[in-house]
């Protein structure tokens, strides 16, 4: 661990006070403990103000009209909307040739949301349908219409040597060839995308935005408003989920800026759920034809894969080059995108990984059973390094694998019911970097404030900002106020790639450390104790040699002048690291008479370097399992390819797991990982659905290769349909 300012230990020094490093875990009083969210009460009680909740004097409400079919020549007559009393502005967002189902066409601002809705409906839309492709079948048909100028398929990316891989397949003891498919998944942020733009003319504007990048907004908003970025303030007090879909201003934000500029009034524009499902991104679909080979002694010897990404008008995601996580002796992968007239896929919690994981983990499982080997042992044999083995063993213990009868084949059913267990692993980066500026202030009255413009994507940023400062100053977390979500505060990086914590925590630590050092120097005179001998703990500052020479926090702060003190911290290498691992296990019960899959239990182990807030970490791991369970069993965007209609752009027919679908979920933190802070939240969503699908096979022999794993597919896999 790099120490920026270390000094030699001298006789009598307990520990180098000035060393900028996380203390040993055993010495931590606040961090590495279960911390309740500092903003929990505000969120639970409804006091927390989200963008959706912002109400300003003179504010108007805007709604968006979207295109109901995937491709059309569109002509708009906005006049009927303008004639409605209460409608204040109507603007066109797209005319002529539209490109995707759900594309925003126009926006209306009115004195109430209801009138804005009436305005949207009053717009006369002439739609001349053009041939479209909304799914793989349509996009790859012989006479398919061209989605993009250059056609419907991207260039291929390949990795590995095809001839070698195919030769290895031929000589493998066992091989499996199968097609695995995953649907398009929506982010389902509970707070839809949207902004409130407070611009009433002049040279200042405030944009309240549900975003995962406070500082990604001002520049684009300024462009729309004709201002400079420095004249736009972005506020993100709280935000209701992003999962990768909420960077920058977006079409909706740009429309709101245009309306605000036209009206000189604050504009509130939040997407409806249907808008959201058509124009706010999604997780790309995936089709993977995988052909894998194994040796009888349990080595993965060959893989040939043909991968398609379905990211709508853009590429979609699939991670890296080569087989996902597992070591395969000879492999060849071909990856390409298939374009459709649907919304552009966006980053979504571990982009591409949950898709790759499902294909690879299913194939690995199939190969293990094909050679008659325990799938847990087969995994351990083909994963690099000791971490996965230890984590797989931990979740296997937690889920009861040792006592489970079906080790190398699905077990016998009892009354048509089978119980099964499945496994899968994950990987992610989660490292940090430059870009955060944190200010810590200590006031004469004892108040401590940590300020940085960052946003809380939901991972508990506000809480750990306060906790790191509290730890450094020897205070309880309640004594520190964390201010975030305001672009007037210190710069911060956007929350993508699980990089926030590893980027921000070091900067907070640096600021807190500087503030403590500065404070110690000031107190040194007043207390007549050398600064380096002053210990900050339990709300007191004491001479480590003579603890009776001490001041309470309040007394000590009284020694500060009216200006108090403040310090700015920035990213410091050595306080965070990179690269995480995770393993998950699922236990399910399958009723083979009805196809019902009930998840009985899930267990996860995850490494994350130094755990800042254990409760928040477990909660993120559980959230990952919940999202994966929902993806695996329920979620799927449905479009009727003939009519072009979105059939489930609502939360009734687009099914997301609710409370009663959630089984016992055990989240384990891998405490053998001694590295400093690392982000991991994306890793937690990667393996769960694969583990569930593998558990279903283990329970009853139904191998479902197409998600979501719904009862019709279970019955079909069991040969009971038709």
């Amino acid at each position, binding site marked *: 661990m790099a120490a920026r300012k270390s000094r030699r230990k001298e006789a009598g020094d307990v520990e180098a006070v000035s060393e900028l490093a996380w203390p040993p875990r055993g010495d931590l009083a606040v961090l590495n403990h279960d911390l309740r969210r500092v903003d929990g009460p505000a969120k639970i009680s409804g006091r927390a103000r989200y963008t959706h909740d912002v109400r300003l004097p003179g504010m108007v409400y805007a709604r968006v009209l979207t295109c109901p079919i995937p491709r059309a020549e569109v002509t708009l007559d906005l006049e009927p909307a303008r004639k409605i009393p209460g409608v204040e502005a109507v603007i066109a967002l797209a005319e002529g040739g539209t490109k995707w189902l759900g594309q925003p066409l126009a926006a209306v601002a009115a004195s109430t949301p209801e009138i804005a809705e009436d305005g949207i409906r009053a717009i006369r839309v002439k739609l001349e349908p053009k041939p479209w492709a909304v799914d793989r079948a349509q996009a790859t048909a012989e006479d398919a219409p061209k989605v993009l100028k250059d056609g419907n398929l991207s260039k291929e990316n390949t990795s590995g040597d095809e001839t070698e891989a195919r030769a290895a397949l031929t000589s493998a003891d066992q091989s499996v060839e199968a097609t695995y498919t995953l649907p398009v998944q929506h982010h389902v942020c509970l707070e839809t995308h949207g902004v409130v733009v407070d611009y009433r003319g002049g040279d200042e504007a405030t944009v309240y935005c549900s975003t995962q990048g406070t500082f990604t907004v001002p520049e684009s908003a300024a462009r729309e408003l004709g201002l400079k970025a420095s004249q736009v303030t972005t506020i993100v007090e709280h935000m209701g989920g992003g999962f990768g879909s909420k960077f920058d201003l977006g079409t909706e934000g740009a429309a709101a800026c245009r309306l605000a500029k036209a009206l000189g009034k604050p504009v509130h524009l939040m997407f409806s759920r249907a808008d959201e499902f058509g124009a706010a991104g999604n997780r790309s679909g995936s089709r993977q034809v995988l052909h894998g080979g194994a040796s009888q002694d349990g080595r993965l010897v060959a893989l040939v894969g043909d991968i398609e990404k379905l990211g709508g008008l853009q590429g979609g995601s699939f991670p890296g080059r080569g087989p996902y996580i597992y070591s395969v002796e000879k492999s060849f992968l071909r990856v390409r995108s298939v374009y459709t007239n649907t919304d552009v896929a966006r980053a979504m919690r571990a982009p591409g990984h949950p898709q790759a994981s499902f294909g690879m983990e299913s194939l690995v499982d199939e190969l293990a059973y094909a050679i008659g080997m325990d799938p847990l042992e087969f995994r351990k044999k083909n994963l690099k390094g000791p971490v996965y083995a230890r984590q797989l063993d931990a979740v296997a213990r937690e889920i009861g694998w040792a006592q489970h009868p079906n080790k190398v084949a699905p077990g016998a059913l009892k009354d048509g019911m089978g119980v099964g267990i499945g496994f899968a692993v994950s990987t992610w980066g989660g490292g940090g970097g430059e870009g955060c500026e944190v200010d810590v202030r200590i006031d004469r009255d004892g108040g401590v404030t940590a300020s940085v413009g960052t946003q809380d994507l939901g991972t508990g940023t506000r809480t750990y900002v306060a906790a790191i400062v509290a730890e450094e100053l020897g205070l309880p977390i309640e004594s520190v106020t964390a201010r975030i979500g305001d672009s007037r505060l210190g710069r911060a990086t956007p929350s993508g790639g699980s990089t926030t914590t590893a980027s921000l925590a070091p900067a907070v630590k640096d600021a807190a450390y500087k503030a403590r050092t500065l404070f110690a120097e000031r107190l040194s005179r007043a207390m007549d104790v050398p600064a380096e001998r002053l210990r900050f703990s339990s709300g007191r500052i004491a001479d480590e040699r003579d603890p009776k020479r001490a001041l309470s926090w309040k007394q000590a702060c009284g020694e500060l002048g009216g200006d108090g003190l403040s310090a700015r911290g920035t990213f410091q290498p050595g306080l965070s690291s990179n690269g995480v691992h995770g393993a998950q296990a699922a236990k399910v019960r399958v009723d083979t008479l*009805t196809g019902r899959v009930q998840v009985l239990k899930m267990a996860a182990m995850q490494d994350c370097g130094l755990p800042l807030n254990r409760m928040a970490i477990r909660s993120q791991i559980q959230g990952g399992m919940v999202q994966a369970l929902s993806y695996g069993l329920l979620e799927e965007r449905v479009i009727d390819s003939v*009519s072009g*209609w979105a*059939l489930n752009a609502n939360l009734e027919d687009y099914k997301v797991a609710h409370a009663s679908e959630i089984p016992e979920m055990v989240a384990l933190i891998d405490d053998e990982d001694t590295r400093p802070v690392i982000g991991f939240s994306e890793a937690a969503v990667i393996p769960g659905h694969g583990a569930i699908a593998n558990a279903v096979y283990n329970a009853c022999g139904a191998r479902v290769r197409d998600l979501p794993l719904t009862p*019709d597919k279970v019955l079909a896999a069991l040969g009971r*349909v*038709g």
Partner: protein
Amino acid sequence: MKAFTLANPSTLDQAIGILAARRERGAHGRVQVLAGGQDLLTEMKEHLAEPEVLVNLKGIGGLDRIEIDAAGALSIGALATLSALEENEGVRARFPILHEAARSIGSPQIRSVGTVGGNLCQRPRCWYYRSEHAKCLKKGGTECFSYGGLNKYNAILGGGPSYIVHPSDLAPALVALDAQVVLRGSAGERTLALERFFTLPSEGSILRENVLADDELLVRVIVPAPAPGMRSTYLKFKERGSFDFALVAVALALWPDGGKIARARLVLGGVAPVPWRCAGAETALAAKTMDESVWKAAGEAALQGAEPLGHNAYKVPLAKGLIFRALQSLSRA
């Protein structure tokens, strides 16, 4: 939602008087009846229903009673909430099938507002019907889009020309209990078997799912006192455990006689445009021993004549499996 006039009658006769305006040709949709609003208000928000007048029944007293008389017959007012039915101790003790059906509906929030009458009269959930863009048969169009479309959730029995499934959970349970409904209109009251209340698309108006006349209101459901010894269950199979409509539901009442089944009533939900009475399965069960071969035979008989569409053939084995599970659970009771 389109602006409307809210009428607040305080008596049934006043309400029926307002409904009489519907008798004018094509005026049915212009006046609609509001009870709990859990379906109608969503239809209005989605612009599937755009009534000019809403007749609010909530101001009419006495329509929400749930009573069991001395003989054991149950009377349920149309405005009784689903949660009131679910929580009624007498219903729970004597009509477990009804308790289970009520409990399976929607969410606690919906059940606390939604009514028994509304549940029986709710409109289909077919995602083509619910899409404003799809002018389907049920909305006066010329095509049932589900027939050749994405029909995973549609009918396998009794379909054509529309292939909706009736979404009510109470309906199959009440039909299994041989319930009757009391309808009241300008011409007075009539009582008919609930089974005859619902209409197949090939029978009644394609625009409706029941026989209610323009000026009629469903005011009460009567469940006759069951013959002694009845066992009953409502088994609902949902794709999502919470807050979902049935892929298939089984409403089963049977009367054991020693180790045999004296008689049974079996009704399926989620498979047909009406609650689907399985007379063949009832025959297959009558006077038979409670064992697995009989349960399987009942399933086979119940699904006789099923005609799956492109994406819903799974409902056949699912329904058979669920019938098996329902019989199995009552055999353990």
